[in-house]
């Protein structure tokens, strides 16, 4: 286990500060702001800005060496920031409004950067992951208790859809937070091994999945299933490449089978007994809901094509939506979506409910291209880095984290998790882990550099 004795006091502070920020944020509750994510967003933003101020002082004082190399992710992040800036200044009706909307995702990128430049990066990541695992356990337990009507906070009255919201404020958002953490827990099980970890970690994952099931969300299930299949396939590729035999995968397959069996039992027996049966057909074919989503996506594509280079401006989808709808309803195609209007009337949509299309709509091909490049980098090179691992435990750990990324990317097709603080934190942590696999930190060199600054 890495220790921190050789680290500069500033680095030792940050090695606790960043994990504390990620762990406390989900429990910030400011009732006056109505939606939990608003208060959590302010908390996270201010926390990151303080950390950034600290980093600035560290550079100025020489406590931390300046970044020495420019990696591909840094360039790709830079391109994304440039696309955002172009969208704000050349496309948006109100650059300050756009800045307000993109500020939280930008803070996510700063959080990612602060983690990866830390001289004890792996230690920071381990601590943050521990924090997220504890968070997931508490949120899942609270979510299940909420199903039984046990409510500790008053948010459910203010935030009306479904009571399974924990401290996060919405079932879909809660699922976006918990889904990837299933794979983070799995990564810990693989890295540590042992019966204790298998039972405790497996039990925690079952609790998380039960909570997600009670929340009756859909998108994250698709992400989990596809991610698991891909992880298994990649695992098979790894054992074949390294000629390890099927034992590591056998354990994974057995674990997956057990989980499926228990989930089947939940759906068939336990949930109906708790009056929480899932009407899968109704959830998958709720026509008006599905059609309204399609309309948002259709609108986003049309609006993006209208200003295809830099888009309509960050945050402008919501503002321009009803103008677009008015114009759309006056055209022939409007008849197809006419029946959707009552279900979406009386409010603005907020977001496209598809991160990729929202980026395309608001930042055009420039932003969309930069985003896809960045995500493709982590998907491809993350997988490559994992397959290169000589230690099977580390390889399986990396695979699980890669699976978390796949879950997040698929979940983003149906929601807006990257614009909400806690799911954004989880996303950044997963990216930082994959960064660590792609660019392993030279331990001795990093700690020595930090110590020399002290």
């Amino acid at each position, binding site marked *: 286990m890495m220790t921190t004795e050789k680290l500069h006091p500033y680095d030792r502070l940050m090695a606790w500060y960043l994990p504390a920020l990620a762990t406390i944020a989900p429990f910030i509750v*400011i009732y*006056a*702001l*109505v939606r939990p994510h*608003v208060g959590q967003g*302010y908390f996270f*933003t*201010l926390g990151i*800005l*303080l950390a*950034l*101020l600290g*980093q*600035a*002082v*560290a*550079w*100025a*004082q*020489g406590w931390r060496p*300046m970044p020495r190399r420019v990696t591909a992710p840094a360039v790709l992040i830079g391109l994304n920031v440039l696309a955002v800036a172009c969208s704000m200044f050349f496309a948006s*009706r*109100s650059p*300050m*409004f756009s800045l*307000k909307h993109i*500020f939280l995702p930008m803070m996510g990128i700063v959080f990612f950067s602060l983690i990866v430049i830390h001289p004890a990066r792996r230690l920071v990541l381990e601590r943050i992951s521990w924090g997220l695992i504890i968070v997931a356990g508490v949120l899942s337990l609270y979510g299940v208790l909420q199903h039984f009507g046990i409510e500790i906070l008053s948010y459910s009255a203010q935030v009306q859809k479904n009571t399974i919201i924990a401290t996060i404020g919405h079932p879909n958002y809660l699922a976006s937070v918990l889904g990837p953490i299933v794979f983070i827990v799995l990564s810990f099980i693989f890295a540590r091994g042992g019966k204790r970890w298998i039972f405790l970690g497996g039990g925690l994952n079952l609790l998380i999945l039960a909570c997600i099931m009670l929340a009756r969300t859909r998108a994250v299930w698709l992400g989990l299933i596809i991610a698991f299949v891909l992880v298994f396939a990649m695992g098979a590729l790894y054992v074949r490449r390294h000629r390890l035999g099927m034992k590591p995968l056998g354990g994974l397959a057995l674990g997956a089978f057990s989980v499926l069996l228990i989930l089947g039992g939940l759906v068939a027996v336990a949930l109906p007994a708790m009056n929480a049966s899932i009407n899968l057909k109704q959830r998958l074919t709720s026509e008006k809901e599905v059609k309204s989503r399609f309309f948002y996506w259709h609108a986003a594509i049309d609006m993006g094509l209208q200003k295809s280079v830099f888009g309509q401006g960050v*945050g402008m989808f919501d*503002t*321009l*939506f*009803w*103008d677009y*709808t*008015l114009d759309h*309803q*006056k055209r022939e195609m409007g008849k197809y979506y*006419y*029946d959707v*209007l*009552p279900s979406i*009337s*009386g*409010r*603005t949509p907020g977001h496209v409910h598809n991160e990729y299309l929202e980026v395309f709509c608001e930042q055009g091909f420039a932003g969309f291209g930069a985003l896809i490049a960045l995500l493709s980098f982590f998907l491809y090179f993350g997988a490559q880095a994992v397959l290169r691992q000589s230690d099977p435990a580390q390889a399986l750990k990396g695979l699980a984290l890669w699976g978390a990324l796949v879950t997040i990317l698929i979940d983003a097709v149906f929601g807006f998790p990257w614009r909400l603080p806690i799911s954004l934190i989880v996303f950044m942590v997963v990216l930082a882990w994959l960064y660590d696999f792609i660019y392993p930190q030279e331990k001795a060199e990093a700690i020595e550099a930090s110590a020399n600054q002290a």
Partner: protein
Amino acid sequence: MAQNDPQGSANTVKKQYQWLLGGVVAMLAVAGIVWTSLLFIADYEYRGVKDPNASERSRAVLTQYRLTLENILKLDPTNGEIRNRYANVLGILGDKQEAVKQLKIAQHTHNAQDSLFFLADIHEKLGDFEQAESIMNDCVVINPIQIKFNDSRIRMMARKLERIDPKTDPEIYKQALDEYGQAARDWSIRAPHDPNAHLFMGNLYVRVRPLYALQAYRAYLMGLSDNVNWMNLDIDLMIAPRDAMGTIDQIINGRHAKAYKNLP
């Protein structure tokens, strides 16, 4: 000696870069902290501000409410939702020109259907009837089931009729009457539970022909009654008038209809 110490020079340059980088990042961080804090304060205060209800709307209360919203807008000028409320208060206080101006600024960042309706209402009060009607037509296109929007639109069409002299502009009057009749009939089919739907029909019957006075009388009675739930019809605000013919046929043939769409 200092001039012959390249390592020392390099270290000095490096330190300068460190200070520069640190200084720039620190300024950005401080600016971000100040801005985020202002947004937080604006959000927090705004959530605590309650619209004065009808009984509290004295000029003093509304003026204080207006000042509160103005102060919050200074902290977060791009917040269209707050600016919409601000415009609403200005309209109530009588400063309609400023209300329209604020609404148009608010629409840059917050374009809700209610603000469109309010804009139409303000234009009407300012006497800009054509603009009001055009905006109200748009309101109904994107929110066809909102009773308030439909009623306001048809009311505007009725007022338009009152402004036209049928003797001096018979063609224009006829066109306006046809449009009004179409809208009134469509709405009465879709919303028989809305008393105004019957009042609009009454107005139509009165204008069309003297023989329709009986229908007009009946429609006025239904519109002014407390319970307009004629024949227990299952209301479908989205129904197209042609689809209602099935129900009408059933009524004519003496069979009660349960719903417009799901007929027995």
